C-alpha cells in the first residue's frame, strides 16, 4: 500500500513539471495555431538561465529568496526570449500555411542549440538544490523527497492561476475568443498581433519555469530540448490541443502510467506513452478534451495552388537535359561527388514521396521515416536472415513499406490536420522502438550491417546509375500520378472533400491508397539507401528523419510539383557545405528562418512568382 502510494506521488510530482511545460505549448497552439517545436528549447533555456541565476542571486538575497527569486526571474527572461522569437520569426509568417511555421520553429531549435553551447559549454551542469528541501518525508514508511511534495503542491496553484487568467481577466476572454474564432478577435478591435505575442511569451515563460523548477531533480544539458519534445506533444495531443485541463489530465495519466510502467514493464519505457497516445487517438481522435477540427484546414491557408500542367516542350527538354547531365556526371566527377549525388537522389525520392501526400493530398505526416526506414529494414532483414539476393531484397523494400503504410494508414487516415500528423508520429515511434528493442531480430541499435549490392552494382559508378534510374523513375512516376485521374481525385479530396464525396469520390479510400503509395515509394528510397550505405540503424526511423523530409518539402514549396525534389537537392547541398563549419547549426537555423520569412511559398513557389513578376513566366491566369 505504502509503495503504491509512494509511486503515485512520484507520478504526480513528475506530472507537475510536465504540465507546466505542456500548458505553455497548449496555450500557444490554442491561440496562434502554431505547432511550436521550439518549446523544448525554451524549457532548456529555463534550465540554463535558472542554473546561472541560482549561482548568483542567493549570494545577494539569501538562499531562500535567491532560489525562488531565480525561478521567477527565469520565467520572465525566457518569456522575453519567447516574445522576441515571436516578433522576429513568427509574426512575419502567420499568413503562410500553418505548418510552415513549424519549419520556422525548427530553425529556432537549431539556433538555440548552438547559442546554448556557446554560452554554457558542452558539459552537463547539475542543478542547485532547493534550500531547506533536501531530504525526504516518510509517508507510510516510504521515503518521498520533500521537493517532490512541494512540486505536487505548487501545481494546483498554477492550474488555478492559469484558470483565473483565462476565465476571469480581459486577456483571458480574448485568448478564449481567439482560440475559438481568430477573425472575431480582429473584429473586436483587439490588436491581434500583440495578443499573439503576449500569449507566446506567456507560453514560453511557462516552459522556462518548468525548466528551472526541475533543476533540483536534475540539471541543465544540451539534449533536454529534444528529450522533452516527445512527452510534451504526447501530453498536449492526448489532452486535446489547446485544452489546459486536458493537458493537466494527460500529464497526470502519462506520468503515473510511466511510473508504474517503470516498475512492472521496465523495458517498455521507450514506447509506453506513444502506445497510450495511439490508443487515445484511435478512440478519441481529437484528444480527451479537444474539439473537432475542420478538415483540410491545415496546410491549406493562403492562396490556392495554381492549376498544374504536364511538362511543356521546354519542361521536357529541361528534364531530359538534367538527366543527361546526371548520366554523364561519372565521366567528369570525382568519386565523392557521385556519393553525394547518390545521397541527394535518394533523399529527393524520399522527399517527393512525402510531398505527394502532403502537397497533392493535404495529408500531413510527421512519421514518414517509418516507411523510408521500414523499406530499408525489410531489405536488410531479408539479406541478413533469408540470405536473399540483393535484387529480391530491393524489390521487397517498397512492397514491405507499402504494406506497413496500409496498416498505419488504416488507423491514421480517419483523422486530419495536426491530429493526423500526431498519430503518424506515434506510429513511427512504435516502428522505431520495434527496430530498437526487438534485438533478437533487428539487432537493436547495433543495426544490420554488410548489406551491400550485388557484384554487378557494386562500386560507385554502377550504383550511382542504378540510383539515378530508380530514383528518377520513382520521382517521374509520382509526378505522373499527380497528373493521372488518381492524383486529380486526391487533389479534389483536398480542395473540397464535401464536393468530392458528393460526386462519387470515396475521399478516405483515395487518401488511404495515396498514403500507401507514398509509403511504398519512401520504402523504395529506403531500399536504395540501405545498399548505398551497407547498413541500416534505427536512426533511419527516428523522428528527425521524418522532419528532415518535412523541412525540405516546405522549403522547396508545398504547392508546387517539384518542391520536394528541389528542396531535397537544396538542403542536402547546403547541409553538406555548412556542416564543415564550427557553428553550422546556428547558420542552418538562420538560413531556414530566412527562407521561411523571405520566401514563404518555398524556393520553387517564390522562384515562380519572381519569374512571373519579371515576365519570364506567364501568369497562371493568362495561360490559355
Amino acid at each position, binding site marked *: 500500500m505504502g509503495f503504491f502510494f509512494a509511486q503515485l506521488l512520484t507520478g504526480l510530482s513528475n506530472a507537475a513539471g510536465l504540465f507546466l511545460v505542456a500548458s505553455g505549448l497548449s496555450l500557444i497552439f490554442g491561440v496562434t495555431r502554431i505547432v511550436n517545436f521550439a518549446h523544448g528549447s525554451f524549457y532548456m533555456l529555463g534550465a540554463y538561465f535558472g542554473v546561472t541565476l541560482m549561482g548568483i542571486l542567493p549570494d545577494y538575497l539569501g538562499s531562500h529568496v535567491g532560489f525562488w527569486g531565480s525561478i521567477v526571474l527565469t520565467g520572465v527572461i525566457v518569456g522575453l526570449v519567447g516574445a522576441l522569437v515571436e516578433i522576429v520569426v513568427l509574426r512575419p509568417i502567420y499568413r503562410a500555411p500553418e505548418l510552415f511555421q513549424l519549419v520556422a520553429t525548427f530553425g529556432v531549435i537549431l539556433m538555440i542549440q548552438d547559442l546554448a553551447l556557446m554560452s554554457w559549454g558542452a558539459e552537463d551542469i547539475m542543478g542547485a538544490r532547493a534550500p531547506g528541501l533536501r531530504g525526504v518525508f516518510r509517508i507510510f514508511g516510504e521515503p518521498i523527497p520533500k521537493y517532490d511534495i512541494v512540486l505536487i503542491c505548487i501545481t494546483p496553484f498554477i492550474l488555478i492561476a492559469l484558470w483565473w487568467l483565462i476565465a476571469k481577466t480581459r486577456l483571458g476572454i480574448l485568448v478564449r475568443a481567439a482560440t475559438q474564432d481568430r477573425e472575431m478577435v480582429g473584429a473586436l478591435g483587439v490588436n491581434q498581433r500583440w495578443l499573439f505575442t503576449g500569449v507566446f511569451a506567456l507560453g514560453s515563460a511557462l516552459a522556462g519555469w518548468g525548466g528551472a523548477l526541475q533543476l533540483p531533480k536534475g540539471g541543465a544539458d544540451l539534449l533536454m530540448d529534444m528529450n522533452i519534445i516527445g512527452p510534451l506533444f504526447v501530453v498536449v495531443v492526448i489532452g486535446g490541443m489547446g485544452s489546459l485541463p486536458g493537458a493537466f489530465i494527460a500529464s497526470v495519466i502519462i506520468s503515473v502510467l510511466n511510473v508504474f510502467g517503470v516498475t512492472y514493464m521496465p523495458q517498455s519505457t521507450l514506447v509506453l506513452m506513444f502506445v497510450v497516445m495511439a490508443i487515445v487517438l484511435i478512440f478519441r481522435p481529437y484528444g480527451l478534451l479537444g474539439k473537432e477540427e475542420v478538415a483540410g484546414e491545415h496546410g491549406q491557408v493562403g492562396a490556392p495552388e495554381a492549376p*498544374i500542367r504536364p511538362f511543356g516542350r521546354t519542361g521536357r527538354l529541361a528534364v531530359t537535359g538534367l538527366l543527361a547531365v546526371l548520366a554523364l556526371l561519372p565521366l567528369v566527377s570525382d568519386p565523392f561527388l557521385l556519393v553525394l549525388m547518390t545521397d541527394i537522389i535518394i533523399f529527393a525520392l524520399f522527399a517527393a514521396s512525402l510531398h505527394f501526400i502532403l502537397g497533392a493530398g493535404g495529408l500531413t505526416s510527421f512519421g514518414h521515416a517509418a516507411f523510408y526506414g521500414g523499406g530499408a529494414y525489410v531489405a536488410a532483414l531479408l539479406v541478413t536472415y533469408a540470405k536473399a539476393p540483393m535484387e529480391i531484397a530491393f524489390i521487397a523494400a517498397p512492397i514491405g513499406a507499402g504494406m506497413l503504410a496500409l496498416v498505419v494508414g488504416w488507423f491514421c487516415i480517419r483523422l486530419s490536420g495536426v491530429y493526423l500528423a500526431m498519430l503518424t508520429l506515434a506510429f513511427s515511434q512504435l516502428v522505431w522502438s520495434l527496430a530498437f528493442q526487438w534485438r533478437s531480430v533487428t539487432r537493436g541499435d547495433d543495426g544490420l550491417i554488410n548489406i551491400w549490392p550485388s557484384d554487378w552494382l557494386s562500386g560507385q559508378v554502377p550504383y550511382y546509375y542504378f540510383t539515378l534510374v530508380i530514383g528518377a523513375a520513382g520521382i517521374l512516376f509520382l509526378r505522373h500520378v499527380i497528373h*493521372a485521374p488518381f492524383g486529380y481525385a486526391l487533389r479534389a479530396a483536398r480542395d473540397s472533400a464535401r*464536393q468530392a464525396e458528393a460526386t462519387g469520390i470515396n475521399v478516405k479510400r*483515395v487518401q488511404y491508397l495515396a498514403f500507401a503509395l507514398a509509403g511504398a515509394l519512401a520504402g523504395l528510397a529506403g531500399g536504395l539507401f540501405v545498399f548505398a550505405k551497407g547498413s541500416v540503424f534505427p536512426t533511419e526511423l527516428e523522428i528527425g528523419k521524418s522532419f528532415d523530409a518535412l523541412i525540405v518539402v516546405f522549403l522547396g514549396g508545398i504547392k508546387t510539383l517539384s518542391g520536394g525534389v528541389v528542396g531535397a537537392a537544396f538542403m542536402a547541398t547546403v547541409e553538406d557545405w555548412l556542416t564543415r563549419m564550427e557553428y553550422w547549426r546556428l547558420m542552418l537555423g538562420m538560413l531556414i528562418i530566412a527562407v521561411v520569412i523571405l520566401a514563404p511559398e518555398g524556393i520553387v513557389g517564390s522562384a515562380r512568382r519572381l519569374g512571373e513578376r519579371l515576365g519570364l513566366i506567364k501568369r497562371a491566369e493568362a495561360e490559355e
Partner: protein
Amino acid sequence: MSEILRVENLAKSYDGFQAVKGVSFSVKAGEMKALIGPNGAGKSTCFNMLMGQIKPSGGDVFLDGKRITGLRPRQVWRRGVGRTFQITGTYASMTVIENVQMALISHNHRIFSLLPRARDLYRDEAMALLDRVAMTAQAERPCSVLAYGDLKRLELAIALAHKPRLLLMDEPTAGMAPSARIALMQLTADIVAQEGVSVLFTEHDMDVVFTHAHHIMVLNRGELIADGNAAEVRANPQVQEVYLGGGMLFKEIENA
C-alpha cells in the same frame, strides 16, 4: 408524371431537439420543386439527409422506388442524384474544365486510374457541359479566380456531369446579384425542360421561388405545413401566419 423521389416520415433529432419531425413528400419526374421556410426550419438538415451527409433518426427516402436511406453521399450520387451547395464547393486548384472532368472521371469509374492524364480525359463532354451553363469561355481559367456567380454555374455543370435524374440545389442563388439570380434559375429551368431532370431546391428569394417552382413546400419548425402549387401555398393560412413575422417575405408572397 411518375414519382422520382419519395420521402416518408423523415426525422432527425439532436440530443432531444427535433430538427425535422417526420416529413413526407415526393418529387415528380421533370418538375421543379421548392422547399422554403424561415431560418432554422430544418431545410438544410432535410437536404443533407436526402443526400446522405446526415443520417436520419427515422423515416425513409426512396429514389425511383428504391430505398436510399442512410447511404453515403457518393452512393446517393451514383444512383443519380446531383447536388449544388449553399457555399460552393469547387476544386480551387484546378481549372474550370478540370473541375467538370473530375466529375466525369468519377462518373466513368476511373478515379483510381494511374495511366492516362486526367486533363486529356472527357474534354469534349466537359466542354459540352460547360456550354450548357455558358462557361466555355472560361474553361481554362483557374477556378480560384472565378466570380461567385460563375462558380455557381460551374457547380451546376459539375452536378450535371453524371446525367442526374434529380438535382438537389441548396440555396442556389444565395449571395448573388438579382439579375444573376434570374439568369441562373432560367438556366436551371431550361435544363429541366430539355433534359427531363427533376429539381428540388431551397431558396430564400420568393421571386425566384414563385417564378420557377412548379410546386412549393413550406417547412416550419421541422414540420411540413404546406405542399402545393403557388396559389395553394399562398392561400394557406398557416403559411401566412409563419411568414407574417417575416413581414417583408410575406409581402413578397402577396406580390408574387
